[in-house]
């Protein structure tokens, strides 16, 4: 059985986490891989806890949610406690947004990084809401779960017309952030 790559994107409603998950899963399909994307969100349209999970595999995906995370993205304090508690391996990547997350937990496992997704979105692109695409770029840059070409193709297929250049730049910023921590 081939090893799955299990990625969890967490934060709050309005941060574009579900869209980011759908894009990542679509990119995997473009490469002929299997993918399952699931989500949790509350009844609120903004502000409530939200997560999107993506499992990518070359083979069959038996359990469609994250059973043993390879990467956890946290964009909001509300998501920290529920979505980092099942990290059991020391090589699990845990990416916190250095601005929107205020309290950083003391995790027993995982390699923790604090990255300026929202600050980059705000300062360099003038659009704080595009932090999700920057984070996607970083995730692809760190894990190589899909190629940079595939993620770009998948992003462009799902974003509103007229925002293509902005999204491409956001991805590049994300790739760049990945190089700052990649060994």
């Amino acid at each position, binding site marked *: 059985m081939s090893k799955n790559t299990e990625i969890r994107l967490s934060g709050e409603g309005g941060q574009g986490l579900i869209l980011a998950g759908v894009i990542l899963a679509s990119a995997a399909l473009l490469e002929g891989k299997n993918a*399952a994307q699931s989500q949790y969100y509350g009844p609120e349209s903004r502000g409530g806890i939200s997560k999107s999970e993506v499992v990518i595999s070359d083979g069959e995906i038996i359990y469609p949610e994250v059973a043993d995370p390879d990467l956890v993205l946290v964009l909001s304090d509300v998501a920290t406690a529920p979505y980092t508690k099942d990290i059991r391996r020391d090589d699990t990547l845990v990416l916190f947004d250095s601005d929107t997350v205020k309290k950083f937990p003391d995790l027993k496992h995982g390699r923790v990084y604090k990255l300026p997704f929202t600050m980059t979105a705000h300062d360099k692109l003038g659009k704080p809401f595009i932090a999700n695409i920057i984070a996607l770029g970083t995730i692809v840059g760190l894990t190589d779960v899909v190629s940079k070409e595939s993620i770009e193709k998948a992003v462009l297929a799902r974003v509103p017309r007229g925002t293509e250049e902005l999204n491409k730049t956001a991805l590049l910023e994300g790739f760049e952030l990945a190089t700052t921590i990649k060994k």
Partner: protein
Amino acid sequence: MEKKALLISGNESCVEGALYAGIQFFAGYPITPSSEIPEGLSRKLPKYGGVMIQMEDEIAAMAAVIGASLTGKKSMTATSGPGFSLKQENLGFASFNEIPCVVVDVMRGGPSTGAPTGPSQGDVMQARWGTHGDHPIVALAPNSIPEIFTETVRAFNISEKYRVPVILLLDEIIAHMRERMVFPEKGELEVIERTGPTVPPDQYKPFDVSNSPLPLVPPMAAYGTGYRFHVTGLNHRIDGFPTNNGEIIEKELHRIMEKIDLYKKDMFRTEAYMLDDAEVGIVAYGSSARAAKYAVNELRKQGIKAGMLRYVTIWPFEENAVEKLAQKVKFIVVPELNMGQLIFEVERAAKGRTKVHGVNRVNIEIIHPHDIMEKVKELSHGI
């Protein structure tokens, strides 16, 4: 040429499955987590020459589905817990009058309004006994996006062929989840049409099975084609009119129940996974079965010979499968996203041959493979 794989949700897969099966009418009232089904059909069904109506509530939607089906159209509605409760009275009418229809229930946290966006498998018993009185019903519970497609088609087929309402029991997880899907070509899956009357209008009786091509299944005429017949929620004679004759009442009730018994083998669908040498049995359905299958693989890596029996058709319940399993395993575990519902059927079918234990969650989180693995390990120590 290789067919294109799409990333679609379970609800979208249900829409495509219904269109493949030849749905001609949909009536519904939107409710989370089923709303993508009416949304999708409102866009697509008119292009296929069908009709989609949003009714004033779930009761009216179920009534509209019954009316449309009586005119010969393949009909469906979709809802979730609270709406499923509202549909029950008319569902009983459809069941008693043998009116084909598909009712999709995307289970969410309950009781009452419960947790609209939270997953659940809390409607298993409601699907069987939600409407009053002894009545025939069929319920199917797929566990993946491709299987939602094929089970939607099968729901229509069973419903049309045997004149029985079929409940498609989805849960929030598989309804909202997206997976890889390659649609079957036309002709790849069987699509069944209902059997029309074999006699002229003046001789037609809606519940007469004396000349049925399929024993116990009365041929069904369509309103608007010259055939006139009476349907009522009262106990009725084979000509459709009410009766107080106990003998006729009993005979007709027995017939509609025996009809399911006669054809249940055609309705049953189960999956056996690693059962041949299994010492621990896991009986599961819907999204919980995906956690169960994962747990089976992990447990085997740790030296515990587990296997899974998955029910795709929940009602009628295939007792023999559990009975056989109970004879060879040390114990059975039943993971469910409720406080224990199908476990009663499993216990009944196991007939005390082995112990049956539940793994349950009602905290609006999916059943995790570790929940099942821990339970199995804990029980294995005691043996």
